[in-house]
């Protein structure tokens, strides 16, 4: 797999020299001529030229003229969003992924793909050198979006939102890359799965839960928890828990000791990323909480330290994540 990729990438980088010079001329012409009409005319001419170019890799997405490749097959995808990378692999487009973000670890095949940076540090040159015909970006990466537009490279703009948006993103990316059926099947499956978990916990008492994704190790300081919006909050509700910060309409809340004492969670779930924690480390993390002895979760010992990236990546494994939470909340 690795060797395969390298042989593909190598020659194409060199081959790209010709058209890249031509493309980089484009914006300069646009910029120097003032009127919009002329600019559009030039863009049209450029478009004609580029589509005539034998080396052009399928239809191009010229944003000014509207999307042209809505149902076309794309074959070289760079994904800066780990959740979407997972989606692409899950709908069978893994072989078309030619570049991933520096945080991509799942599925294992994703680790072997070239890394092109992430949210704050996308490597534009590296992305270009992979000759993608679709780049999955965060919609907040405005600089990268502008540069990719100038380079006439099509984009899929990802927005981080709630649980329901995960399956709608799967359907959207499936439509975008011409794998509508598999994407729909996957998304419907996830929806059904989550619904089943929802039904299985329906009617059970909902423990007041705080879902923590960051804390200073060894102290009850700098504690960050999921607020009342976002996919973590939605997962918690779907798994039959009551979010103690459900009323705070933010993605994250700094949970001060006073807030925690006031909200009195029955269950504390701490989500860690990276390598699984040792038993000692987990025991120590639980001990720290005895600093707030009145919390019901501390009294009953319902403190859970989970190292599970399914809980932090809003991707196709989200139904499993909801099941994990449901098992924790309703043992």
């Amino acid at each position, binding site marked *: 797999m690795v060797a395969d990729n390298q042989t593909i990438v190598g020659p194409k980088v060199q081959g790209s020299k010709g058209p890249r010079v031509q493309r980089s001329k484009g914006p300069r012409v646009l910029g120097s001529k003032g009127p919009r009409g002329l600019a559009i005319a030039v863009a049209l001419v450029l478009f004609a030229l580029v589509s005539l170019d034998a080396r052009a890799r399928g239809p191009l997405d010229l944003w000014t003229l509207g999307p042209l490749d809505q149902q076309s097959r794309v074959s070289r995808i760079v994904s800066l969003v780990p959740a979407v990378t997972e989606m692409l692999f899950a709908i069978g487009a893994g072989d078309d992924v030619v570049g991933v973000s520096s945080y991509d670890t799942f599925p294992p095949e994703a680790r072997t793909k070239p890394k092109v940076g992430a949210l704050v540090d996308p490597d534009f040159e590296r992305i270009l050198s992979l000759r993608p015909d679709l780049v999955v970006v965060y919609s907040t990466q405005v600089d990268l979006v502008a540069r990719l537009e100038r380079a006439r490279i099509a984009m899929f703009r990802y927005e981080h939102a709630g649980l329901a948006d995960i399956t709608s993103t799967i359907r959207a990316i499936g439509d975008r890359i011409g794998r509508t059926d598999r994407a729909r099947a996957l998304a419907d499956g996830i929806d059904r799965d989550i619904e089943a978990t929802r039904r299985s916990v329906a009617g059970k008492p909902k423990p007041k839960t705080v879902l923590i994704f960051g804390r200073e190790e060894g102290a009850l300081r*700098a504690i960050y928890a999921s607020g009342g919006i976002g996919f973590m909050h939605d997962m918690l509700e779907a798994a039959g828990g009551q979010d103690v910060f459900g009323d705070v309409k933010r993605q994250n809340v700094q949970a*001060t*000791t*006073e807030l925690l004492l006031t909200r009195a969670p029955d269950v504390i779930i701490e989500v860690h990323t990276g390598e699984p924690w040792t038993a000692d480390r987990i025991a120590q993390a639980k001990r720290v909480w005895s600093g707030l002895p009145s919390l019901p979760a501390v009294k009953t010992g319902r403190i859970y330290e989970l190292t599970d990236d399914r809980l932090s990546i809003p991707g196709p494994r989200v139904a499993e994540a909801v099941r994990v939470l449901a098992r924790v909340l309703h043992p």
Partner: protein
Amino acid sequence: MTLPLRRGFPAIALCFTAMVAAVVAAPFIGSTSIAFSRVFSTALPFADNVDAQIFFIARLPRALAAALVGGTLAAAGVVFQGLLRNPLATPYTLGVSAGASLGAMVAITFGSMWVGGVASASLAGAFLAVGIVYALASARHRGLSTTVLLLAGVTLNSFFSALILFVQYVSDFAQTFRALRWLMGDLDVASYAPIIAALPLVVIAFTAFAWLARPLNLLSIGAEAAATRGVNVVLAQRVAFFSASLATGAAVSVGGPIGFVGIIVPHLARLMVGSDHRLVLPASTFFGAAFLVGCDAIARTVLAPIELPVGIITAVIGGPFFLWLLITRR
């Protein structure tokens, strides 16, 4: 010499009262209302008494930490301004806070490998910065060259800032967020342990400050003039540099690099009691403590249940207030 001293006493008494009032009042203010009859009730065991825990675990250590940090930063600001004979000097001018921040960033980013926690890492960073600046400033001079001190401090500040950016850049997103939040200052210490850990350092620093008041007065005229009046200039400079740095490092390790307290409060104190360090030091300490406790109370309540970083409040309140004083006191 005795007359102006006595004239400053009412102002110092006022600052002291303000500090005590702030520390006593702050635990009664918060985002949630608690029943005070239950806070001090002995009928309920402490482990079950939520109100008492909010009072004694969440609020009281916080008020005490704010007082400690505010008073220490303000006093350190006075000493640095006296040592460098520069009204724009702050406790952070000589790179102590940048070193402390770097230590904290490293601990937050590579936390699992660091045993001592964020506070001790920031203290270690502060000591590193102090050591470097001292070595540079005393390399070519007998005693300390204040010019070299300033230049070395400013350069070290930007150097460490670059390293901080580097560490943040290689850390993952959640860590970057936590690190950034640490830089804004946070006094939710959650127990008395961080305060007790910092206390010995603060006590040592303030003992030195007490001794420094007279030498600093004479140094403000000039090093040579002070020497002719019997001040051991080299010793005074060293003590001032190390004690103020120690105080700053201790304060930053508790609450993060909270800005503005260390520059505004000394000037406000001078407006109240004049420029005699024997008056400015206690007035600044008490007023700085009261000021930070007040700012933290605002930070906790103004957007409740969400909390604002206290560093934002000190800057937002302190900055305009200081400018207003500057303009009206002409």
